[in-house]
C-alpha cells in the first residue's frame, strides 16, 4: 500500500514511538525477596549427669544441653516424631558451640526451603578442665563417652523422638574434637547411628604416613614450653600454648597413666602449685580458650621422674578458682605424651593412642562402616594439620570400600577458602553445617514428616 508522502513523517514518528514503547517495556521485574527469618537460638537447659560425678577435676556434673529444631516444626504430640542428630562440639568449647554458627537459623532456613525435614539437633557440653574431653572415658578426666550415651537416653525419654526406627533415626556428627568423637561413637555403637559425619576431625593421629600427624606437633610443644632449656616435665597448659594444650587434652583422653603405674608417686609434691584454669568456664569458650588463662603453670615437677613421656598434674578436690593459690598435696594424675623428651615417638604410649585412633581402628575392622553413611570434610588450610589426618583415613576407606564413595554412601569434601578467609579449622562451619544437615536428613530411614 502506498503511503502518501504527506503522511510519511508522522507515520515515521508513530513507528518510532511504538518501537520506543515496545523496547522500553521489555525491562523485567526484580524477584520478590523471601520473608525474613526471625532470629532464634536453640533451647538450652543445664542438666545434671551422674556419670560425671567424682571426676578427678571436679568438673561440673551439670551440663548445658542444647536442642535445636526448626520453628515450623513442633514437639507437639500430633506431629510425627523427630529423628535426632547428635552434634558434638569442638575442643575448647561447650554446649552452646553451634549457636555461634547459627544452627537454629540454619535449621529454619533449610526446613523452610524444603531441603531438610524435621529433626532435632542436640549438643551437650563435653568440656573439661583441659579444654575438651575428646568424648572418651578416661581415668584422668571422667566418663565423657558415658555422658553422650546418657544424653541419648535422656533425649529419647524426654522428647518426642522417633525411637522405633532404631539406628536409622539417629545420626551423630561433630566438629574437630567432636568429629573424632562422632566417628568413635559410630564405630563403637553401629547399632545406634545410621550415619555419621566429621568436620575437620583428627581421624588419623599419625597422619597419612603414620609418622606425622600429632607427632609433628612436637617441635611446637617444645617451643611453647622452652624445652630442652626447661625440663620435659615442665610441659604444661598455658597462655598461648595452642599445641601444648591440645595434645595434653588428647593425652588426658587417650593415654592417662594410672596412679599405680607412676614411678615413685610418694615423691610427688605440689607445694605452692597454682593450677591455671579458664576463667570463663561455662560460657561460650572460643577455640583458643587457652589464651585466656590467668594463672601461671605449676613448676614443681623436678622432684618427680615418673617416666620419659609422662607429665604429672595435681588433681583438685575442691571448687576450682582461677585466682586460688592452692597449697595442697593431692594425689597426682599422670598422662603420657606420645613423644619423649628427645622428641622421639614413645612407642608404648603411641600404642595407646593407636588403640583410640579412628584410622587404626578402621584398618582393624574395615567393615565397620559398611552399613553406615559417612561424611567427612576438612579445610585445605587446617592449622592443626587435620587435613592430612583426614586424607590418611580417606585412603584407608577408599581401599576398603571405594564403592561406598561411588554411590555417595560415603562422602569426602575438601573445602577451600576465599579471598581473605583461609579454610582453617574453624572457618566456614556455618556453611559446612548446611551440608551436614542435608546429608543426615537424607539418611534418616523414615519419612520425617511433611516438609513445608
Amino acid at each position: 500500500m502506498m503511503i502518501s508522502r504527506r503522511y510519511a513523517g508522522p507515520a515515521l514518528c508513530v513507528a518510532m514511538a511504538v518501537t520506543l514503547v515496545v523496547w522500553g517495556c521489555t525491562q523485567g521485574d526484580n524477584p520478590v525477596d523471601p520473608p525474613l527469618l526471625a532470629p532464634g537460638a536453640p533451647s538450652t537447659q543445664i542438666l545434671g549427669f551422674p556419670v560425671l560425678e567424682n571426676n578427678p577435676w571436679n568438673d561440673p556434673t551439670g551440663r548445658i544441653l542444647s536442642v535445636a529444631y526448626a520453628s515450623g516444626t513442633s514437639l507437639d504430640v500430633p506431629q510425627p516424631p523427630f529423628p535426632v542428630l547428635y552434634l558434638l562440639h569442638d575442643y575448647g568449647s561447650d554446649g552452646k558451640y553451634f549457636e555461634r554458627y547459627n544452627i537454629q537459623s540454619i535449621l529454619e532456613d533449610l526446613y523452610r526451603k524444603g531441603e531438610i525435614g524435621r529433626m532435632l539437633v542436640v549438643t551437650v557440653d563435653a568440656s573439661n578442665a583441659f579444654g575438651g574431653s575428646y568424648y572418651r572415658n578416661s581415668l584422668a578426666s571422667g566418663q565423657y563417652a558415658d555422658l553422650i550415651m546418657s544424653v541419648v537416653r535422656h533425649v529419647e525419654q524426654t522428647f518426642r523422638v522417633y525411637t522405633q526406627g532404631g539406628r536409622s533415626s539417629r545420626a551423630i556428627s561433630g566438629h574437630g574434637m567432636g568429629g573424632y568423637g562422632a566417628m568413635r561413637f559410630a564405630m563403637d555403637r553401629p547399632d545406634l547411628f545410621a550415619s555419621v559425619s566429621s568436620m575437620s576431625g583428627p581421624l588419623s593421629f599419625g597422619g597419612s604416613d603414620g609418622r606425622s600427624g600429632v607427632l609433628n606437633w612436637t617441635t611446637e610443644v617444645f617451643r611453647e614450653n622452652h624445652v630442652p632449656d626447661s625440663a620435659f616435665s615442665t610441659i604444661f597448659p598455658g597462655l598461648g600454648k595452642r599445641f601444648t594444650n591440645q595434645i595434653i587434652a588428647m593425652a588426658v583422653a587417650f593415654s592417662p597413666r594410672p596412679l599405680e603405674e607412676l614411678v615413685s608417686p610418694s615423691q610427688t609434691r605440689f607445694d605452692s602449685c597454682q593450677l591455671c584454669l579458664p576463667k570463663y568456664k561455662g560460657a561460650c569458650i572460643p577455640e583458643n580458650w587457652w589464651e585466656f588463662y590467668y594463672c601461671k603453670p605449676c613448676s614443681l615437677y623436678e622432684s618427680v621422674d615418673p617416666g620419659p613421656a609422662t607429665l604429672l598434674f595435681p588433681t583438685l578436690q575442691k571448687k576450682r578458682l582461677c585466682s586460688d593459690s592452692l597449697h595442697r598435696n593431692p594425689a597426682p594424675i599422670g598422662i603420657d605424651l606420645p613423644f619423649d623428651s628427645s622428641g622421639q615417638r614413645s612407642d608404648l604410649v603411641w600404642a595407646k593412642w593407636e588403640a583410640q585412633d579412628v584410622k587404626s581402628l578402621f584398618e582393624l575392622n574395615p567393615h565397620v562402616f559398611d552399613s553406615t553413611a559417612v561424611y567427612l570434610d576438612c579445610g585445605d588450610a587446617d592449622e592443626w594439620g587435620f587435613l592430612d589426618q583426614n586424607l590418611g583415613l580417606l585412603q584407608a576407606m577408599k581401599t576398603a570400600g571405594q564403592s561406598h564413595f561411588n554411590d555417595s554412601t560415603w562422602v569426602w569434601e575438601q573445602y577451600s577458602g576465599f579471598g581473605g578467609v583461609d579454610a582453617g579449622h574453624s572457618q566456614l562451619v556455618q556453611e559446612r553445617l548446611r551440608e551436614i544437615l542435608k546429608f543426615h536428613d537424607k539418611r534418616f530411614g523414615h519419612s520425617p514428616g511433611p516438609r513445608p
Partner: protein
Amino acid sequence: MPLELTRQMKSMWGRVFVLMLGIVIFTISSSHAAGFATPGVGIRARSMGGAFRGLADDWSAASHNPAGLAFLKSSELNVSLGTYTPGLSYTPNLKANGKYDLGFKDGQERFPLDELFPIPSFAGIAVPSQTNGWVFGAAIFWPHDVNYSWDLFKAPFGYNNDYQFAKKNFRTDLDVLDIHPVVAHKLGEDLSVGAGLSLTNGDLVYRRVLFIDNPLGAPFNQYPYDHFLADFQLHGNGFAVGGNAGLLWRISEKLSLGVSGQTPVTVPLKGNAQLNMAWPKNPALRSPILPSPYDAVVVGNDTLTSDRFFSGNYREGYSARSQDQSKFELDLHLPAQLGAGVGWTASDRLTLAFDAVVTFWSAVDRWTIALADSGLNTRVGHRQDIDIPFGWKNQVRISGGAEYAVKENVLLRGGLYYDGTAAPDSTFGPSFPDVGNKIGVTLGGAYTINGHLELAAAQELGFYSKRNVGNTGTGVGQSVYPGEYRSFRSETLLSMSYRF
C-alpha cells in the same frame, strides 16, 4: 504548497511532536555511551550515528567541533529533550568460592530500579552579520550522566537481618553539567577554528555496601563475620573548567574535514559521606566472654568488646553506635577526547559523514574518596579513605551517518556506530555498567516549518555484547562484581530549533 495543506501538516506535526514528547517522558528508554558519558548532544549528530565532526553545522558543533559554527548562516536557538532509564540486567554471581554467601542476591536476574531522568539541553548561537566571520554562542548540556539504582544486597545468613539495607543499596547518580560558551572564526573561505569553555559542574550521589575488616580474633572473625557490613553513601558536588577546540576545513564544495578535541577535566567533588554499620545479631557471640584485649577493639578513646558487635542494631547503650558521617573530597576525572570526521555532500539530497573519536578513559583509573579528619568511624577502626578501582581503558568510537532530503523541509537521517567498552572485567560492577562493546543503529527525521522552526526526532537502538565477569575470588563484592550483565539501548530524542 497550498496554505491549507501547510496548516494541516503543521497541526499534524505539532500533535505528533507533543505525542512523542509525552511518550518519551512516560515510557522507558535507556541511554549510555562508553564509560559514564552520555551518547552525545544534538539530534542531527545523534541521528547520524554521532558522525558530525566533519559537518558541524548546527548548534551541537559547540560540543562536537566548535569550528563548524563559523560556517553557520543563521542564528539558532535549540531546546532538546531526552530521557533515559537504565535498561540492563545483572545476574550476580558473587558467592565466595562458588558456595559461600556474601549477601548478594546471587542467581537472580536483577534490574535497576526504574527511574526516569529527562536530560534536556539548551543552546543559542549568534551569527552576527558585522563581526567579520566571528560566531558566538553557548550551550548547556550533560556530557556525562549515570543513573543506576539496584537492589542487590541483603545481609547474609548469620546476620539475622537486624539491619535492613535500603532498597537502593547500590546507587550511582552522576550528573556532569557543561555550560559551554563557544566562539568560532573563519580564517578564510574554507577554513575555520573554534573553541569553547567547559564550565563543568559535577554532582555525585553514590551508595554501596562496604565490607569492613573484622579485627577481632577467633571465634569472632569467622565466616560470615570475617568482615562486618556497612552501608556507605555520599553526596557531593564541585566545579571545574575545561575546554574544547576544533578545526574545520572545507576541502571542496562537497568535502569537509573536521578535527576537534576536548581537554580532560578534573572536578573536585566535596560533600558529605555517611556510613551505617550493619551489626550481626548472634547471641552466642554477644556476651562479653573474654577479657580485654582479646575480644576488644580500641578505637580512639573507646574500648569496645564483642557485645558491641553481635547484638544487632538500634539498641542504644548496647550495640555500638552504628552511624558516622564525614566530609569527603573526590577528584572526579573526566576524560579527554580527540576526534576527526569527514563530511561529504554526495548529491543535492544526500549527505554522508564519518567520524572516529578516541576517548581517553584511562584517566578514570580509580576513585580515592578522601575522608576528612579521622575519617569514618566504623567502631572497629577508622576508614581514612575509600578506594574504588576502575582501571578503564581508552576507547575508539567509529561512526557513520547519512542525511537524505526527502523534500526541502523534510529530512531523514540514519547512522551506525561502534563504541568500545572502557571498563575491564577486573573492576566491573553494577555502579558503572558499561556492559560491552556496542553497535548502534540510529534513525531520525526533521521537519522544518516556514523555514525557521525545525522539529526533529531520533531513535537509537544500541546492541551491547553480553558480559560475563568471572568470579576469581579476589575483590568480590568490593572491587569487582562477578556475574552476567546484559544491556540493550533504546533512546529517543526530541528537538526543536528556531533559526533566524
